[in-house]
């Protein structure tokens, strides 16, 4: 296990390094000049040059990159070019918001989708299976800005049951915050349910058709025990992988949902930083999201081991 973790850490470090290089140099291709964007199109060129010098953006790219990455590993994320405040403050708030929404969405969609997938598999080719798979797929292809607006119109405006934005007033209770997060979380449920349910269905069908399941039945084990002890443990392996990869999306990719519901999460932060060529903010936010993604996949891998002893023993060997 120790070797496994060390190996994963090494791979994660290389991945994050490559990510930081790609994002930094890729952002240089974006049109516009940093100081010009801050001062506006009507500013004097001398003022633009002075601000570029002040921000250090007139230095060679490699120098800029090295300064930034070495500060990052010292825990100094620098100040935002656009907002003039520590990047860590902006990221801290945004990350907390994203984690809250991601957690709420996961708590709803994961059990629901797993249940749906298992039922669809158990009732394979019957009406309930069709409803779950086709219905889920149909919902998954609806863009989130469409489903989000429909939810806002129905529950926020017409029925006046839920708030139309996601950010609860400061000091709100836990349940009030959940109320504000419900509509964006439901939008995510609509988006992710079909995908996770189909993967679960496929994994469950594979497990149901496997030799060990037939053997378990032939041994005389009750259906419930077979499902719980043999089928589910194996069918959930691909589902775990899918859920882990969705974590990165939920933490750093919800630009549309965060914009629609005016929610100050990581997705909007990264998008704004890229638009404004705010390199310290962009780089740090992307790396933090990347770290989150890698942690989620590590947890997924560890869960694999727990659920599947063959993987655990292979690693031990």
């Amino acid at each position: 296990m120790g070797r496994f973790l060390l190996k994963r850490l090494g791979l994660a470090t290389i991945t994050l390094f490559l990510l930081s290089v790609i994002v930094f140099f890729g952002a240089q291709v974006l049109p516009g000049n940093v100081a010009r964007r801050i001062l506006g199109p009507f500013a004097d060129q001398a003022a633009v040059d002075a601000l570029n010098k002040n921000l250090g953006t007139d230095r060679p790219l490699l120098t800029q990159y090295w300064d930034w990455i070495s500060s990052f590993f010292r825990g100094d994320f620098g100040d935002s070019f656009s907002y003039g405040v520590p990047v860590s403050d902006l990221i801290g708030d945004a990350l907390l918001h994203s984690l809250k929404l991601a957690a709420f969405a996961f708590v709803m969609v994961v059990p629901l989708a797993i249940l749906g997938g298992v039922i669809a598999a158990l009732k394979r080719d019957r009406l309930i299976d069709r409803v779950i798979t086709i219905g889920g797929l149909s919902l998954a292809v609806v863009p989130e800005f469409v489903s989000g607006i429909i939810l806002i119109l129905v529950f926020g405006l017409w029925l006046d049951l839920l708030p139309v934005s996601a950010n609860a007033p400061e000091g709100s209770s836990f349940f009030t915050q959940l109320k504000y997060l419900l509509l964006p979380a439901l939008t995510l449920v609509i988006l992710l349910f079909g995908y996770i349910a189909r993967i679960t269905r496929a994994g469950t069908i594979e497990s149901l058709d496997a030799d060990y399941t037939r053997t378990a039945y032939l041994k005389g084990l009750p259906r419930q025990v077979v499902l719980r002890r043999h089928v589910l443990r194996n069918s959930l392996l691909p589902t775990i992988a899918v859920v882990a990869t969705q974590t990165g999306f939920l933490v750093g990719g919800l630009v549309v949902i965060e914009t629609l519901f005016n929610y100050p999460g990581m997705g909007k932060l990264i998008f704004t930083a890229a638009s404004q060529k705010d390199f310290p903010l962009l780089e740090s936010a992307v790396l933090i999201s990347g770290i989150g993604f890698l942690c989620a996949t590590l947890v997924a891998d560890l869960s694999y081991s727990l659920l599947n002893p063959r993987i655990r023993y292979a690693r031990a060997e």
Partner: protein
Amino acid sequence: MDETQRRVDEVRRERSEVENHLIDEYGAGKISRREFVRRGTVVGMSIPLLGFLAAACGGSDGETGGTTTGAEPTGDLKKGGTVRVALIQPTTAPNPLLVQDEGGAGILGATGEFLSFSDDKLELQPRIAESWEPNEDGSVWTFKIRQGVKFHDGTPLTANDVVTTFDKLINPDGGSANAQSALGGVLSPGNIEAPDDASVVFNLDAPNGNFPTLVSSANYNAIIIPADLDPGDWGKTFQGTGPFKLEKFTPKVGLTVVRNDDYWGPKPNVDKLDIKFYDEEAPMILALQGDEVDFVEHFSVSGGKALLGDDNVQVIAVKAATHRELHMRTDKEPFTDKRVRQAIALSIDRQALVDGLWEGQADIGNDSPFGPLYPSTDTSVPQREQDIDQAKQLLADAGKGDGFTVQLDTWNGFEIPDLAQLVKNYAEQIGVTINLKITDGATYYGDGVFGKSTWLDSVMGITDYGHRPVPNVYLTAPLSGDPKIGVWNSAHFKNDTYDGLVRDYVAALDLDSQRGVAKQIEELLLDETPIIFPYFYYFLAAAKPSLKGAVSAATGQFDLSKAGFTA
């Protein structure tokens, strides 16, 4: 002698030549009451005085400009409460020197205060300055600073704070680019002085009849800050003298301000403004409809159609000078011949653009910066209308009867792509093929200097211009042949007669003179047509019906100090 006339004569004896000339114009019926009051505030006359003179001296009551609908206070307003405001996301740190966007202007004005406030009627309401007056030729303006005003931390405001504020703004090394776009060529560093604690004197580079507007809230960076405060640190305390003061600011989320009980003027009705930042317009509109905000600072016609027809929403429409400029390079083919430029202008159906793009919430333009809302606009100049036959004839006369192909560059903001497509369609009717190249704003504006900017280098382009309460900047920067002044001259227009007329206009102190020169400028630009001004669109804000007294200025600022909820 009748008592009223005696009082008028007494008042006039104490007025300057400029003010008396304005009174004469009004008395002779040359300007409407609205124009008299508006111009009167600019030259430094108080509203009560203007009201008295307007009643005493008669004159026409013709309406020009002003608010079409408003959130005027009616009936009793409740004391207290919180107004929830939706404001577009500021794009920079809250630094009075750096702000150059609507969201930033909104937060500067939330706690900051100006020498005067340019309201929705283009009238200047005294704030930190109690009054102002020019010398004989308008080259020196003296502002009387209100006494007893304090910053939010209790420090008294002095004339020196006003001087240092403007010194910082116009400092060529690190000042405000936006403020300098208004004051460049008008006021140079080192020419502002405070002879005493109650006065500030601006010694201008040249006579300027509209100077007070250029240092009002219309120049949204010009909030007065303490002399010893670094503008870069302003965002820590939002130090100002306004009716509201900072409670909390969270970058990218919002700003909360509370009533300033030590304010020098009438205290606000409400206790608090809770200003939330929105990255996009749609969530702002949904928030208003979902009763999560009470006031939306700005919405567009295309995005806010649902609000325009909603009986549960007050639409506050302010006539504004916000417009688009379709430039044609006068120094490059195919537009070197003015007949070609005129032909393009004649191909456009402006009313259709106003009806289609703005649902009527705009005024048609006449190819000059003189929009209908300006009192100095001469409306006797014939309005250019679509005339396809004449356009084709002009092209034939210019040797381009077979048509030609040209590229139009612009960016994908607001309704601009739709306007570009419509211009292309209109041009096809006269045999001109326009190829559209639409990029993002950063690409279009580039570095904002000649040689490094599609905006300034393209043969044909569409550029957006924000509202200015006086047309001075529009007359100079985009059209002046002087390279030091015409820094936005995308049409590369060079005309000495025009430059001379603009100097005359800027120097003119009275409305009659301004209008006389404006007529000549309008006619010259109609003839030369370096730029097509298709329309001037209204600035739209929205409020819940229960919120009264909200004032929206077309610069994106709002004044909620007199707002309140109906009882």
